[in-house]
């Protein structure tokens, strides 16, 4: 994550044209690309497993939103805490959670992070500084504020990062949580992924506000907007917010402009979404955009893409194999683990 460039290699000649890229370490940039690719590959694998009838229930795709998760999470230190929602697979991936844990949870395995008690990416892991969400949208915001409060009280310079949707942002907990964080200047960042849809509901039925970020002012906190499909922009905007949070300057609300490229969940064909919308946003696919940019800067070529693709596939294959080999739960001892 270094901010200064290492000595450019031979391919770097084209890079001068992209001043923003030039500020970053090549490994860091390729890491962003790779983590988006890992996220997409894992997402695809989950969908494939669903189609093979191997998942316990449905699945929620984050396709097209990988930058919102990967770019933002890249701004964190390992000891910072993430609170991913259902479409933040990329955050889990980037924050260092082994892919097999995600798959074990999707496959309802006894050795998964919830032992089969909860599904999909609905889990947490203290070891990986990851808080698990509950389904009730918005609830994670006050809870992340509480985590940030613990850091602040103990004088730790850790930060909590979480997400909410254009739909979920209309739940009361958004208001209570952000306002609470504002009053206490808690080290917390909230990314509002405006992906235009909440299940079948378009944003104009969610709010009459011209955008969501203007709500930041109502809590006396910083607001920022960003192209949610530009992974580097996501990194930068979150990085600034995280740095400020760490410095005691309080929370930031970031509105990321993006698009949900699948139905709400796999059962939903999203017929209510105008076809053009998908077409337009397909052009703006975050992985596509970033790879074009890296290629233009001479940081990526066919060989590297192929190599990364192969490595990622190997990782996902291995994770799938591992997860699939795990035992199923037996339904004993549940009642003994309700209380700590």
């Amino acid at each position: 994550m270094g901010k200064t460039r290492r000595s450019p290699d031979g391919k770097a000649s084209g890079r001068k044209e992209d001043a923003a890229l030039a500020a970053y370490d090549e490994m860091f940039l390729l890491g962003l690309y790779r983590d988006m690719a890992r996220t997409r590959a894992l997402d695809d694998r989950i969908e494939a497993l669903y189609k093979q009838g191997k998942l316990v229930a449905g699945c929620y795709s984050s396709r097209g939103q990988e930058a919102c998760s990967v770019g933002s999470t890249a701004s964190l230190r390992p000891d910072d805490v993430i609170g991913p929602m259902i479409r933040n697979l990329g955050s889990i991936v980037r924050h260092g959670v082994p892919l097999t844990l995600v798959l074990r949870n999707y496959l309802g395995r006894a050795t998964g992070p919830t032992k089969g008690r909860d599904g999909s990416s609905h889990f947490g892991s203290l070891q990986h500084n990851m808080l698990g969400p509950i389904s009730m949208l918005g609830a994670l915001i006050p809870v992340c504020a509480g985590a940030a409060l613990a850091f602040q009280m103990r004088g730790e310079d850790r930060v909590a990062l979480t997400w909410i949707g254009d739909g979920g942002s209309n739940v009361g907990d958004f208001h209570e949580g952000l306002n609470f964080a504002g009053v206490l200047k808690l080290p917390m960042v909230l990314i509002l992924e405006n992906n235009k849809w909440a299940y079948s509901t378009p944003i104009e039925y969610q709010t009459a506000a011209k955008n969501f970020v203007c709500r930041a002012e109502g809590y006396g906190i910083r607001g920022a907007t960003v192209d949610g499909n530009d992974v580097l922009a996501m990194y930068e905007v979150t990085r600034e917010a995280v740095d400020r949070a760490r410095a005691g300057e309080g929370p930031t609300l970031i509105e990321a402009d993006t698009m949900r490229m699948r139905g709400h969940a796999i059962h939903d064909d999203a017929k209510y979404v105008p076809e053009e919308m998908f077409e337009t946003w397909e052009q703006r696919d975050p992985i596509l955009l970033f790879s074009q940019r890296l290629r233009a800067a001479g940081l990526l070529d066919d060989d590297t893409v192929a190599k990364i693709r192969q490595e990622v596939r190997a990782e996902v294959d291995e994770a799938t194999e591992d997860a699939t080999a795990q035992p199923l739960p037996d339904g004993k001892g549940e009642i003994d683990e309700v209380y700590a």
Partner: protein
Amino acid sequence: MSKITYIGALREGMREELLRDESVFCIGEDIGTYGGAFRATQGFLEEFGRPRILDTPLSESAIIGACVGAAIMGMRPVAEMQFADFVTGGFNMLVNFAAKVHYRWGPSVPMVVRLPCGGGTRGGPFHTTNPEAWFTRVPGLKVVAPATVRDAKGLIKAAIRDDNPVLYFEHKYLYRRLKDELPDEDLITPIGKARLAREGNDVSLIAYGSMVHYGGQAAAELEQAGISVEVLDLRSLVPLDEEAILATVAKTNRVVIAHEDTKTGGFGGEIAARIAELGFEHLDAPIRRVASIDTPVPHAPQLEDAFMPGVEDLKQALKETVEY
């Protein structure tokens, strides 16, 4: 007559009331364009238009609160919670506003909240619960739970016509698994009357919702073993048909209570307590409750199956009660 599903009957009931009474409207998340997460309101937007079929922001408290205000002003809203579990966001509105308005200062609050509940669907801790007991303890709310296609229709129509806030617990597992023929007449199931789902002599099974079906299956299987089970389908938890409960207890002298909700603090406790107080003289055996175990609802099939009571659990409890 062709067969209709449980959810189809619910839909038909709502539609008839929408046609009958202009003050009836539907409100909730994704109920319009999408026809609801379970398609209970499919076709309504096309037929009745916005705002009578009102897709709302993702805001359960606003949805239920708006129902209260509209109902006080004379409308008859029918709200859908996308899953019963999400009613916790509108909890305060229901238990403090809706429930207490009439008692406090008089107006009637004719509103229905539909709550798709129940398990067997691998929905996990937040898409599977049976939260009816929270509301059965709130004076001012009515609570119904249809177990049949007929009552899916009859109870939604009765709920819409009722002048009080009614919580309508529709069981997701039954949505498309139950099918029946319904007469064309205006079908109303009176709220507060239980239904004798099966007559029997040896033991009474008191149940509601999905447990009526598992119970019916258990009873059928036990019949072959020479045990005659009477099954009482409560249909309405508040008001509760105490008379029907005491009558079946007086008849069989043995009782098992079943619900899909977890055991501790579930509504079964209330039923057992009433019997232990008012039907004590008739009892020849302990009152058994068959319910889910006291944990959150787990997701994986192996766990959910171990969590939920099944036909075998019911048979065993019924048998033990008869043999006591």
